[in-house]
């Protein structure tokens, strides 16, 4: 498919009239000379789950990784455009504070080689959030929010690697929640998990959105349909369409979206 023939929907950015937590405006992103994102504009609604779908290499993960500026840690990358959090441009603010407020969960569980307790308390500790607070309370609250407390409460001081893959991923969610992020980014969080562990995490996300805004990248269209309020479809570095999830799945306005949804490619 010729990328230049793809048209981005002018209405892609605003599927609904909800309060906006994060807004990307005309974002271009380059790995060296390769342009991975083309002029992406997307609004992320407060306390909603926003899903991003699309075939491999379409730029959805790249886009997500710009929302907390973790892509900056890769060499030879460049971003243009504007990304705001509560109306403030995040690209010229202190990056550590941005990342504290915008948490991230990765494709594969990546607990630190420390105990479960130390994994959770790591973020509060390095961000100076332990003063006057009880570490054990933070750990319990975070594990409860990630629906891991019952399974982990008896082995808090054991290695995080003693947990199963699905538990490790929930530990990573708990670790991210421990610093009270306003936004939680998830980069294909279930791709390394079995269906039961996946279901647990999906339930968890739906329950979490009252407390924070969630953005999830997924390969799995059913997952987007199950958890997301709005869904954006990426193709070849462009945002083709972003709308309410049932509109995207039942009545997409773009032919490319429909082709992808119905399994004609990707």
């Amino acid at each position, binding site marked *: 498919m010729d990328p230049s023939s793809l048209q981005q929907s002018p209405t892609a950015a605003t599927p609904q009239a909800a309060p906006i937590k994060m807004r990307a405006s005309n974002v271009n992103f380059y790995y060296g000379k390769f342009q991975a994102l083309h002029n992406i504009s997307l609004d992320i609604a407060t306390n909603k789950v926003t899903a991003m779908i699309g075939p491999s290499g379409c730029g959805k993960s790249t886009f997500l990784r710009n929302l*907390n500026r973790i892509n900056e*840690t890769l060499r030879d990358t460049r971003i243009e455009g504007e990304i705001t959090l509560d109306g403030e441009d995040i690209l010229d603010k202190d990056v*550590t504070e*941005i*990342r504290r407020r915008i948490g*991230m969960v990765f494709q594969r569980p990546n607990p630190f*080689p420390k105990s479960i307790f130390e994994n959770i308390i*790591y973020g509060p500790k*390095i961000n100076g959030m332990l003063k006057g607070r009880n570490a054990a309370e933070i750990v319990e609250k975070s594990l409860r929010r990630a629906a891991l407390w019952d399974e982990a409460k008896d082995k808090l001081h054991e290695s995080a*690697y003693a947990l199963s893959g699905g538990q490790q991923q929930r530990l990573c969610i708990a670790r991210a929640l421990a610093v009270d992020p306003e936004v939680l980014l998830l980069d294909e969080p279930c791709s390394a998990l079995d269906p039961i562990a996946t279901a647990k995490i999906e339930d968890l996300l739906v329950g979490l959105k009252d407390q924070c805004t969630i953005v999830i990248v997924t390969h799995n269209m059913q997952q987007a349909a199950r958890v997301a309020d709005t869904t954006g479809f990426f193709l070849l570095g462009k945002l083709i369409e972003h709308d309410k999830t049932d509109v995207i799945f039942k009545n997409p306005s773009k032919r490319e979206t429909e082709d992808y949804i119905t399994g004609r490619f990707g």
Partner: protein
Amino acid sequence: MPIKTTPRNRWRNAVNDVMLSLTAVCAFLTVSALFTILGYLLYNGGKSVDLNFFTKLPLAPGQDGGGMANAIVGSATIVILASVIGLPIGFFAGIYLAEFSPKKFGFLIRYTADLLNGVPSIIIGIFAWTVVVRPFHQFSALAGSLALSLMLIPITARGTEQFLLEVPRTMREGALALGAPMWVTIMTVIVPAARKGIMTSMILGVARISGETAPLLFTALGNQFWADGLMQPTASLPAMIFTHATAPYDDWHRQAWAAGLVLLGLVFVANITARMIVSRGASLPK
């Protein structure tokens, strides 16, 4: 069709047997060389290692009951001081190489470190003699430590770099995504994850420099008595082996063997310690 053994089959089987035997012979030679050295040391050195060896000063040829207490303490002093200088520099240089260095500059440092690693130790000795000993007109333990630390730095730097790079990128990102600055990420997550490997390369590096002789002959020189401070010529086991083994006295030869055995014992202990650290389970999931 019947299965036949052709002359070609027989030839191939014969070649196979010969080559397999050859590898076994070479493996045996490797091991037997090591055990010959060990046995020789044990046989010759074992006779002379006694309590006096660890507690007394060397005596003149012909007198019984001398030891190398000053050389053992001197070696320890020089090696510890070299470690205090060399390990932190090598460690931080390794962190820079693994985490911060721009591509071209990193290549330059890495290449230089490898070159420094390959420089014959006698040249390190001459260098240290030229820049430390000659200007101050003084052989000293400090000069010896500086020379040995020059050898320790590249070993530690490359070892640290290698084990840091083995820590998965996702773990770095996990810490950075929680709002940790790069330096905090390195010191609280990446280095602890690579801790065992880094410590192993440090121990092996220290073991390696503790047997170096040539740099010490030019710098710490040697001493038949206790050294009076770090700025004095200081005895060390390797230098003591050299002077005693090349002297024309039988009892000194026996002392040299004993010193060799003790030195080898110390290196052996360091090696085993390093291996135990590594084998206490991998610190990272594979």
